[in-house]
């Protein structure tokens, strides 16, 4: 009923608490989970409440991911914590050749209810191997679903749907957003995978975003409001499946679109989305679709360089100026 203001981390822990209470087959495995409730404290309270169902593993990403697959094939609903999303590279075979394909290759004989939970993103001065946003790799992999929530309320509703889904789901949460707070309902609610949210209505331009990109759009929209540009913010929330209906409805109204993500630009999700918009909504557009993303380099360590590489709200505003010709 009531909303409280809680962090993304707390929203995640609350949702998982509810789910684990409901379904005994859910468990979480990964490195360094029990003693500090996850490296970011993201599973606060769970180790005490569910002893034996939060499992510390050796540093063995390939096998951890593979265990997720094997346990899911045999009646459990595992959540695999990848520690840092950068280390998905160490479990790529298990994710892409195994999890993504097993159901299909078997002619649909089995289900694979497994969530791969990946804390991603830059801005912590953690340098190139601990700062990446790799979601678009997995969008390119038929058989996986890809979820990238932004606000705490999305985290709660989406992780619950991800856990209940019978398919492998890649779930990305930005490290810098764990502490970010927002209103979250106490209710046991689900946000279906594949449903975007219009987070702010507007008539002049559609900002399409997800994850940390949402907050850039929020900031940019406020600034643009001062210039009498009324931006609509569509938070995609899941990239696969993708809610083209909501996207189309918004673009039909504004006729202009800017896509915003923190991942580097080339080959990022914006490329796929821009292609679909021009293909499916060409007649609605009054301007070419613009993309905003990080520059195409690994994330550098030193603060000024890192900040330079990452997209800013000003970049979003500049892209809006370009598509609105103002």
């Amino acid at each position: 009923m009531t909303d409280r203001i809680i962090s993304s981390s707390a929203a995640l822990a609350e949702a998982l608490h509810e789910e684990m209470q409901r379904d005994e087959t859910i468990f979480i495995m990964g490195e360094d989970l029990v003693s500090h409730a996850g490296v970011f404290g993201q599973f606060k309270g769970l180790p005490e409440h569910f002893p034996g169902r939060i499992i510390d593993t050796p540093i063995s990403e390939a096998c951890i991911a593979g265990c997720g697959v094997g346990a899911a094939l045999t009646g459990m609903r595992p959540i695999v914590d990848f520690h840092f999303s950068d280390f998905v590279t160490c479990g790529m075979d298990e994710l892409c050749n195994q999890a993504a394909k097993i159901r299909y290759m078997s002619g649909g004989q089995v289900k694979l209810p497994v969530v791969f939970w990946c804390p991603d993103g830059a801005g912590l001065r953690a340098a190139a191997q601990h700062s990446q946003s790799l979601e678009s790799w997995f969008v390119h992999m038929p058989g996986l679903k890809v979820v990238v929530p932004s606000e705490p309320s999305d985290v709660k509703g989406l992780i619950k749907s991800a856990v209940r889904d019978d398919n492998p789901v890649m779930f990305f949460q930005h490290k810098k957003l764990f502490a970010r707070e927002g209103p979250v309902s106490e209710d046991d609610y689900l946000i279906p995978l594949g449903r975007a949210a219009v987070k702010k209505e507007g008539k002049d331009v559609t900002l399409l975003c997800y994850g940390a990109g949402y907050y850039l759009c929020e900031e940019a929209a406020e600034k643009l409001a001062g210039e009498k540009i009324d931006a609509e913010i569509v938070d995609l929330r899941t990239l696969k499946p993708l809610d083209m209906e909501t996207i189309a409805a918004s673009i039909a109204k504004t006729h202009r679109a800017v896509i915003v993500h923190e991942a580097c630009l080339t080959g990022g999700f914006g490329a796929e989305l821009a292609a679909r918009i021009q293909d499916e909504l060409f007649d609605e557009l009054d301007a070419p679709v613009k993309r905003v993303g990080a520059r195409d380099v690994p994330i550098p360590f030193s603060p000024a360089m890192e900040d330079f590489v990452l997209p800013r709200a000003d970049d979003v505003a500049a892209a809006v100026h370009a598509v609105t010709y103002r």
Partner: protein
Amino acid sequence: MAENRKKLLELYRQMVTVRQFETMAGEYFAAGKIPGFIHLSIGQEASSVGVCSCLRPDDYVITTHRGHGHMIAKGADLKRMVAELFGKKDGYCKGKGGSMHIADYSIGILGANGVVAGGLPIITGAGLSIKMRKTDQVAVCFFGDGATNRGPVHEAMNMASIWKLPILFVVENNQWASTTPLEYACSVEDLYVRAAGYNIPGEQVDGNDILAVQKAAEKAVIRARAGEGPTFIENKTYRIKGHYEGDPQKYRTDSEIKKWQDKKDPINRFSRVLFKKRVLSKKIVDQIWSEVQTALNEAITFAENSPFPQPEDAMADLYINS
């Protein structure tokens, strides 16, 4: 004798340098001068210094996220190291890498790694290259006890063994991998036994006894240079500081840490040996610590005076335009 004395003092000085460097890094991190996160090797100085003391300048080393000691022991410049930690332009990586990625390829450091066990396949390639180029260099890979549970470690050991590559696999068993104790995460109590599965000689060494470390490494280096293949050395030691600076360390007790300080501290232990041999005196100790502090102060001044990189410098160094 005088020659030997000089060498012993040099080992001592190097250990003190690593210790002082790490202590400084912890202080500057706490003061907000070092961005990101850093992993210190206090308590593990005998391993880095002992192994590297057996190496030539043209030998290779790959280090880890806990790599400051290996860098210093292989001969890195303190000034450029501190500058890199500070994210400055004159740092080893021009501020692009930071603590976790400090490297000096000109002295044979083939990288530090933020990916646990990331160095092992690469060292195997370096070993293969040495063999193909027919030199008598050796290649050393440092890694932690936690790393030994990753697949690439095992693939690397097997390949190094079948091709008899000139490699030293040096595991620094500090008994903890972040919050996870070795006895939980490893199927064996002693890691050196894992080498047997790959037909590689494995040896466990008291990793806080620098002369024992040096002896084991010397033997392995001779074997490698002679083309007889890799060796696996387990330096049993202890991580005194948190996994990273700021680690709340709920997973262990203060009394466990204390057990590895004072009497078991590798620098104290070595200094007791050197006092007995009359190589060290109170006066020489004071002199070395103060000389090291002076060198470190110079490095800090250098780093503080170095400019930050320009934001656009982020775009340089990705590809070679050839």
